[in-house]
């Protein structure tokens, strides 16, 4: 007869079987999510990041903003009151990796886009305590003085394309994007035009208030200002997304 003692005294077997048990749990709970049709809500407006926003997201990761900020508004009343509509899975479908985070030293940023002006974002990142005296957020002054490196922007987009983000390389992919997102957005997602698109967006919007150069601040603010703004929730009934759960 099977005796537990036999397992407990065979350390190699114990390790293998423990790992097996855990993987089954994970596989059963997680893997099917990729196949459940309702996981990602059907909603208009969500698009991959533009080249400039993408570099901004990279800087967000590099600086460890996610260690203090979540990007996941849970469907709770207090969160809805403070941050707005709960986050949809669809809204992070092009994020690899997603920035949901798990720690809120600072507020959630999932819908911070357009909440403040570019001026505020820049001043706050350079010196948070100049605007919010009780803040414990660190100063990030170098973002304003560091030139943005976009020499490898095409490679970054190509890597995400392999992960399934619809950045286009070929004419056929571009045409598919035009169909899906419209021409304007499709142009932005074209890897062949990445560099000129990045420069143009930074120059047109001048996020950091200094038109003479493209700084890391330009990219980060471009990214922050688009967070949570892609879906127009006024187009949907307030229970539209209940059916996906």
């Amino acid at each position: 007869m099977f005796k537990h003692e036999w397992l407990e005294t065979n350390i190699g077997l114990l390790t293998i079987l423990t790992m097996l048990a855990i993987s089954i749990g994970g596989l059963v709970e997680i893997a099917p999510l990729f196949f459940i049709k309702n996981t990602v809500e059907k909603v208009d407006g969500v698009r991959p990041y533009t080249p400039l926003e993408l570099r901004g997201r990279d800087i967000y990761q590099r600086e460890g903003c996610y260690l203090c900020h979540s990007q996941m508004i849970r469907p709770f009343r207090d969160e809805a009151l403070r941050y707005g509509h709960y986050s949809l899975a669809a809204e992070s479908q092009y994020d690899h990796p997603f920035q949901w985070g798990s720690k809120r030293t600072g507020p959630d940023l999932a819908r911070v886009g357009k909440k403040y002006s570019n001026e505020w974002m820049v001043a706050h990142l350079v010196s948070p305590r100049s605007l919010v005296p009780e803040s414990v957020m660190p100063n990030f002054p170098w973002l304003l003085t560091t030139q943005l490196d976009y020499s490898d922007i095409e490679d970054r987009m190509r890597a995400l394309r392999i992960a399934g983000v619809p950045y286009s390389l070929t004419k056929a992919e571009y045409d598919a994007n035009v169909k899906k997102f419209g021409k304007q957005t499709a142009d932005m997602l074209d890897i062949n035009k990445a560099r000129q698109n990045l420069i143009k967006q930074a120059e047109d919007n001048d996020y950091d208030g200094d038109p003479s150069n493209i700084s890391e601040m330009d990219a980060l603010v471009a990214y922050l200002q688009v967070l949570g703004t892609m879906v127009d929730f006024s187009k949907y009934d307030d229970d539209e997304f209940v059916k996906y759960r």
Partner: protein
Amino acid sequence: MSASKQQAHVPQTTGHVWDGDLQEYNNPLPNWWLMAFYASVVFAVIYWFMYPAWPIAGTFTTGFKTITYVNNKGVEKTVHWNTRALLLQETNEAVKAQKPYFDKLSSMSFEQIAKDPEMNSFVLSAGKELFSDNCAPCHQQGGAGKVGFAPNLTDDDWLYGGHFSEINHTITYGRHGYMPPFAGVLTDQQMTELADYILSFEKYPVNPASAEAGNQLFHSETAACYYCHGADAKGRKVIGSANLTDSIWLWANVPAAKTIADKEAAIKTVITGGLNRGVMPTWQGRLSTDQIKLLTVYVHDLGGGQ
């Protein structure tokens, strides 16, 4: 463990002996622990039947428990239990609890709300929270503003007007003040004259001849300041051009500058570079009409409402 219990069960050992006399007890798990373990297994099985749990093929088991809510169209719906429906249900309940206040809020005029003591305390408590979450990062706690960034909302000086309707419009649609740069259009001498003219309103001891020249220039077609700031230099509320005759400054930090030359320089910086930094975001969409109404009364009550 009591002495009698200890005697009742003879301790078993695992059978190993280390260092000649070191043995390891092989005690059975305590009963309370085992019971708790079995109970949680039973709980898990019940849970699977009650709540969304197991993925199967392209869908999942939804559970027997249901939840009923009313959506924004007033349609009552019953669906399998899930957190998104629960949020709607809880929101309905909270709205019901606050309904008397919000009904009053939407039916009353701004003036009535400001005069009604009960509504006023509601506005004060709810408004304070909304203000610190959304407005304080720019206008600062208490609304005193920040020179060079966002205006003071507690004084009676208003760029866009301090009446309820004007404040409400400001919050709903946002504002963006614009003044063109005059670098290259005006000479340094001319800008000094304009600065002196503006400083003369506050009775600073500036050169009177220079201030008079500035007065001419202000109302001339060369500089055309009067076009936006008005012939009396008191500003025009529709475009939010500042009142230049009072002692309240948002962009040119005149009060902080010590000497007359520094005060002139502060004003000249604004004239040279123009202004495009005054961005008050739009709150329509992020905040509800009722929340904006509440904030309007709150801001009006901060001190400077007209």
